[in-house]
């Protein structure tokens, strides 16, 4: 309990301050979370779901916390040099754990759609938050949930009312910005009501060269017949640590696509738990990891089939280079009575050096007989014959390798239904393989590549940028 001690003491000392700069609804479960954290501590590697990541070690350094809600002087729209009013995403920023509301996109959202600060929403729309906040992400179940609930003061709230279709994707950029080593505890609550349809794109960035530790707990409620597409792209740096727990609850006939892409990071641990609570619901989960140096990426998923007639698909691909460590553990649980379940889980990995290491663990736990479930997992290297074929035709070895790696993760990228985003990501991943580092790039990749995609004359809505400085 050494690593835990500093957080317990900090909380005991700063209780008042934390509460003061947050909202009553967020303060309510804090004490319970504190008790749970004292009891649970950080998850250890002896726990099946945390086998591959040493949590306590990541939390051991002394990070600063912005509990007093001190305003950080930054205008993300400027930092990103890409003020893009005509871009077909509605762009929002979350700076550390605060929703940035000083400048908002000019494009208006359909009636009733809310994208705002969670703390503010808890005051203005308590009826939307109550009963949802902390219901899926129980602080008693996971030490990280407890820690996040203890310290989180703000975050993001997205609400899509009944039968509302949000045509334009919502893009949320999480920026880590600080002058000291910083810990951020962010909370996200997403409610997609019955019959609604929304596409979300989260991009994680760190713009300062400091150590960052971000915990993010997301709760996602997908109503009956609702459709949600959620893309998460992490492009931080080697000094950044991310612990993200996402809990999704799906009602009858809803569909959810979750795409998780990790291109640049330090240590990442994503836990994604999807519960299918209504019949005929469908979940698709995709993941793509490109890691080298000492990057550490651990994806841990659970798909809980509670009711009959649901479908789930999972596809995760890793390319590991350098001394990277990759871990994938996916569990599909089919409960008693969840008949006619169809589930398919695939994890394929490329290990390119003898210092990289891959752990993979696809699991099936099935208590119903009329099901079709399968999983497959491979760890291997590039096909020698394919390499030979390309070299024979004059393609240099490095280029050939790159092409094959690119084709390998291409399967995941092709699952992205948002066409312009898919094009952009293809481009980003290619760049990533070509070894471009973050230092060489200065701004949000999604936006910066607009100019380049123009050069490449690719068509797509996202390339219609007319406003940003880069384009001018």
């Amino acid at each position: 309990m050494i690593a835990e001690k500093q957080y317990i003491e900090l909380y005991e000392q700063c209780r008042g301050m934390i509460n003061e700069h947050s909202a009553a609804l967020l303060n309510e479960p804090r004490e319970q979370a504190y008790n749970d954290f004292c009891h649970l501590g950080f998850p250890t590697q002896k726990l099946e779901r945390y086998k591959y990541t040493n949590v306590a070690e990541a939390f051991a350094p002394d990070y600063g916390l912005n509990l007093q809600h001190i305003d950080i002087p930054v205008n993300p729209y400027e930092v990103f040099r890409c003020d893009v009013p005509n871009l077909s995403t509605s762009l929002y920023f979350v700076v550390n754990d605060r929703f940035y509301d000083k400048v908002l996109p000019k494009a208006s959202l359909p009636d009733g759609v809310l994208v705002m600060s969670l703390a503010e929403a808890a005051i203005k729309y308590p009826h939307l938050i109550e009963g949802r906040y902390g219901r899926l992400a129980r602080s008693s179940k996971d030490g990280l949930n407890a820690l996040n609930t203890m310290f989180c003061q703000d975050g993001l709230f997205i609400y899509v009312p009944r039968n509302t279709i949000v045509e334009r994707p919502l893009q949320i950029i999480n920026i880590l910005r600080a002058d000291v080593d910083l810990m951020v505890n962010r909370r996200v609550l997403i409610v997609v009501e019955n019959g609604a349809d929304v596409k979300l794109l989260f991009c994680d960035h760190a713009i300062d060269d400091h150590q960052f530790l971000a915990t993010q707990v997301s709760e996602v409620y997908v109503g009956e017949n609702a459709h949600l597409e959620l893309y998460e792209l992490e492009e931080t740096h080697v000094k950044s640590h991310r612990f993200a727990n996402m809990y999704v609850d799906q009602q009858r006939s809803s569909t959810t696509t979750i795409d998780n892409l990790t291109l640049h990071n330090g240590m990442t641990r994503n836990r994604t738990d999807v519960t299918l609570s209504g019949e005929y619901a469908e979940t698709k989960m995709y993941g793509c990891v490109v890691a080298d140096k000492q990057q550490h990426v651990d994806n841990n998923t659970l798909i809980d089939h509670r009711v009959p007639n649901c479908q789930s698909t999972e596809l995760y691909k890793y390319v590991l280079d350098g001394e990277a460590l990759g871990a994938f553990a996916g569990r599909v649980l089919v409960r008693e009575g969840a008949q006619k379940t169809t589930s398919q889980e695939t994890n394929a990995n490329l290990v390119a050096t003898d210092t990289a290491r891959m752990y993979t663990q696809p699991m099936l736990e099935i208590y119903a007989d009329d099901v079709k479930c399968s999983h497959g997992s491979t760890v291997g290297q590039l096909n020698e014959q394919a390499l030979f074929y390309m070299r024979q035709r004059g393609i240099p070895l490095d280029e050939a390798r790159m092409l094959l790696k690119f084709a390998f993760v291409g399967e995941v990228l092709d699952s992205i239904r948002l066409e312009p985003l898919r094009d952009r990501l293809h481009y980003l991943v290619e760049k990533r393989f070509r070894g471009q580092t973050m230092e060489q790039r200065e701004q949000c990749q999604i936006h910066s590549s607009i100019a380049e995609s123009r050069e490449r004359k690719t068509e797509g809505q996202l390339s219609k940028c007319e406003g940003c400085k880069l384009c001018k």
Partner: protein
Amino acid sequence: MEKNNEQTLIQEIADKKYEYGFTTDVKTDIIEKGLNEDVVRLISYKKGEPEWLLDFRLKAFRYWQTLKEPTWGHLNMPEIDYQDISYYADPTAKSPVGGKQGDIDPELMKTFDKLGIPLEERMALSGMAVDAVMDSVSVKTTFRERLKEMGIIFCSISEAVREHPDLVRQYLGSVVPYRDNFFAALNSAVFSDGSFVYIPKGVRCPMELSTYFRINARGTGQFERTLIVCDDDAYVSYLEGCTAPMRDENQLHAAIVEIVVMENAEVKYSTVQNWYPGDKEGKGGVLNLVTKRGHLRGRNSRLSWTQVETGSAITWKYPSCVLSGDGSQAEFYSVALTNNFQQADTGTKMIHLGKNTKSTIISKGISAGRSQNAYRGLVKVGKHADGARNYSSCDSLLLGDKCGAHTFPYMDVQNPTAVVEHEATTSKISEDQLFYCNQRGIPLEDAVGLIVNGYAKDVLNKLPMEFAAEAQKLLGVSLEGAVG
């Protein structure tokens, strides 16, 4: 299918008697219940063991005391009171241990006859030598003389300790050290009898070697220990069978099997495990908690585990292979069938250390009734295991909506030239297949039997012929009519 018909069939199966559930009334020397250093010393004394072995036991026992029973299995394990078990039972007490055949209690002979394991060589199946172990003591080993002519040593481990102490000392605990796990430490402290096999260089064992384990006495556990050493260029096929009487208490069976395979040698190890599985309410049955491991030390050595698991209330075992020799190959074939309230958490570990090593895992799980059947396996490729190759395939078949089938494969790859593949499927018997059989006049129960046997064929084919027939029969007995 008409529900009624199905119900009666299921009922018939549930009521089906466990064929080997009888007890033998024979005077057995059982030591008092409980476990402490004195018991360990007493066992060692009764077996007339040398000092070094007693030391080994005591070290293991002291280490065991520091351990806690593991709980990570996907099992609902009843609490085991280690002080409520007798750790040594000798049914041959009436006659001097190691005496001539004439000295064996005729009751014992009858028991093994009834189990289909005749101990008289003229009656025995040709081509199979048997070591028969009841409770803590080896009753008889057949064909010893004939094997001896070729330099093959096949005897009980107690005799081996007396007659070939150097060999035993060299290899005992070298594959499964007493510090390996909780049950390995327990076994190392109190192990009783088991078989010892040594195949000298270049010898191809002319017959199947086999050990038959039988638990008879009440309130005891069986802690057998088997050690197989196959020297350069040698070959042996070894079979293991086991049964126990029907009792409403849980009996503990914690065994260790160690196999050493040297250069170019090949070992085939087959098990048909048919311990008493408990009654249809889930009462009683054997707790089968076993550590089995083979060490492929030499270049191009080969080891194959084949197991058919139909018995035991709880099966918790992972026959493993450590592939250290370059070019070594390991295989694991398993059919695990659970019915009623049986639970199984079984699989394998393939640890690739040498270069160009290969392993194959084929696992077939069948769950019926209210049973839980889990495959758990590890494939690990070390840093220097260039060119390692693994293929795993785990299929589960569910018969009934109250049972569970689970797959927990672990893969840990550290080498860029390794190719590791895993695939698993879970499904129930296809309605189409059943319909097809029915249409052609094959009744439901036969159709299920056919389909299940076909499903398990990949594994059954790997068994020696006599065992394959028995295994096939066993699968049939346990499955008829259990269609969900």
